[in-house]
């Protein structure tokens, strides 16, 4: 199944629940009308939160850059020993 259909299905299910709530008036209608807006705001907040958290805990590895320089020096030495031209960058 195409993924867009899954998402549409999910949206349809949510709309169905919403319409059901509107029809049966379990909660006051004025509240129910606002629910889709809450949903969109929640989704937006979730997105921003995930980006924020991702940024805060963005894994960095400065030590890897140092290790790489060591590896490069080692490789260079070997390659020069084999007369492979690695002179200019």
């Amino acid at each position, binding site marked *: 199944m195409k*993924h867009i259909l899954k998402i549409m299905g999910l949206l349809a299910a949510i709309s169905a629940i919403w319409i059901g709530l509107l029809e049966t008036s379990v909660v006051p209608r004025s509240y129910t009308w606002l629910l889709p807006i809450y949903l969109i705001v929640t989704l937006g907040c979730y997105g921003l939160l995930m980006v924020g958290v*991702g940024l805060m805990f963005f894994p960095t590895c400065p030590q890897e850059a140092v290790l790489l320089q060591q*590896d490069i020096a080692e490789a260079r030495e070997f390659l020069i020993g084999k007369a492979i*031209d690695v002179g200019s960058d």
Partner: protein
Amino acid sequence: MAEERMEEEEEKEREKENAKYSILIPTYNERLNIALIVYLIFKHLRDVNFEIIIVDDGSPDGTQDVIRQLQQVYGEDRILLRARPRKLGLGTAYYHGLKHASGDFVIIMDADLSHHPKYLPSFIRKQKETGANIVTGTRYVKNGGVHGWNLMRKLTSRGANVLAQTLLWPGVSDLTGSFRLYERSVLEDVITSCVSKGYVFQMEMIVRATRKGYHVEEVPITFVDRVFGSSKLGGSEIVEYLKGLVYLLFTT
């Protein structure tokens, strides 16, 4: 009957032990890096049966001369040069290299040393442990990481990732990474149905693979961006990425 099956299993086990790996590296003007990376691959994969396939897109800087020198040192059967006349794009470079691969598994990595060969054993180990069809390197988990990105680059990367995770539910944490190990038949299957370019190509590969039901595992990798500025994301890249997302929403 049971005995026969056991023998078959053992046969399979043995095959796995002696599995051959083809390491596919597309290059363009990487004369220094390709020498360094080849040395590091041989250093970190001592007891592994592997070949390196370099697809060079007609680099004018003498990359191919360096590769020929490397062939003299390591052997022409270990380093294969499969050049193309001019720059023809990444996706087709993989396809071109794949045609010449003789391994049971194909490992794809970048030539610019942002992918360190020291992680190759963990890809191979992970595949053996889990029997996965694909092992993909992820930068966004513990023990993984990125070096050399400014705040803007991190922000776009996080934003792009959250968007893709929310819309596509791909089941992997790093969609645009390109350090991956594929079972050869799986790569052959997936690559023929992929049409995108650039970042989106990597995303399309992994999303299509998960949709086809292939078993995908992840290993942490670190990504050291040495060429500052090369990974700057412009507005056009972001537009391409969003187009790619929509395309994948409708076609996978």
